[in-house]
């Protein structure tokens, strides 16, 4: 990890933000191990995804019922991120967040002030998404669900919706995390959903 970080680090230096950049924004991509979070970040990021870590202390564990964490030693948890300069002022950071229960403490930092979340699911392991969806609903954090298609078009989206017990008003889209346009579409779906939640529809909500 440490060597990976130092090799990748120059990307953020080689591609500096504009001097005018002033508004950092966050979207969190959450999902189980191997579902394609980092692939998705890489597909749309203007820099090679960076990896960093945060210290997980006993105090933070206590915030949520992380009953799986009984180890008293302090640990670190790694996470990846990328960025998109939206205009001369706004920079959108995309974080890949692990969806498992024991990482909930990290979510607090990632989700604080974030626009919303894309839950990336693998239909072969839908159960990996249940915890994340449950927590997002509990915290009333807006989200959309993107199905990363590893093995073709089956099962149909409506079957996935049923299997995830997803409410009808939560957008559900197909996504190939390797394809830039596909990831772009998932992000646009999320922001359109946020716009819909924030009030009366306007013409600028309509994605192309």
């Amino acid at each position, binding site marked *: 990890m440490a060597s990976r970080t130092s090799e990748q680090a120059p990307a*953020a230096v080689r591609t500096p933000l504009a001097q005018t950049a002033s508004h950092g924004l966050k979207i969190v991509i959450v999902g189980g191990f191997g579902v394609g979070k980092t692939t998705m970040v890489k597909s749309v990021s203007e820099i090679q995804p960076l990896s960093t870590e945060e210290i997980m202390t006993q105090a933070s564990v206590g915030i949520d019922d992380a009953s799986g964490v009984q180890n008293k030693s302090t640990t670190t948890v790694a996470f990846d991120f990328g960025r998109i300069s939206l205009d001369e002022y706004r920079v*959108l950071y995309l974080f890949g967040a692990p969806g498992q229960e024991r990482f909930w403490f990290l979510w607090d930092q990632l989700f604080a002030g974030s626009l919303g979340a894309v839950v990336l699911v693998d239909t072969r392991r839908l159960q990996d998404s249940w915890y994340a969806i449950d927590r997002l609903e509990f915290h009333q954090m807006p989200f959309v669900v993107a199905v990363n298609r590893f093995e073709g078009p089956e099962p149909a989206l409506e079957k996935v919706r049923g299997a995830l017990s997803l409410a009808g008003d939560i957008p559900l889209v197909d996504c190939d995390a390797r394809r830039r346009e596909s990831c772009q579409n998932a992000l646009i779906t999320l922001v359109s959903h946020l716009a819909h939640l924030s009030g009366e529809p306007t013409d600028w909500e309509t994605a192309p």
Partner: protein
Amino acid sequence: MSLRPVDRESPDRLYTVTGGRTLGDEDPFDLVSLIVSERDPAPGMQSEHVRILRSCRAPMAVVEISAILGMPVSVVKVLLRDLLDAGGITVRHPSRYTPHPVMAQLPDRETLKQVLVGLQNL
């Protein structure tokens, strides 16, 4: 994604870097707060402070500094606090940043509109 003990990461060094300090509940930085250097490094400055000042000649997010230094976010925040107190950096906070964030607070519509336009132009 991995969990591993910090003691494989030379905790003595991390402890030394921060002098054992933490920010506690007074965390003035979000992960995406943008940091800008306001001065050049001075002779004799702690090497991590020097690296931060050099890295932030263009605005850089807290989380990017953490990746570049190869140090956990909370350690980097202690170093940033030193620089902030000494007037070495300024912070451009995210528009929705509050020290005690409300999780479910929708962004303003102008921000949403600009984000949407930015994404559509990718």
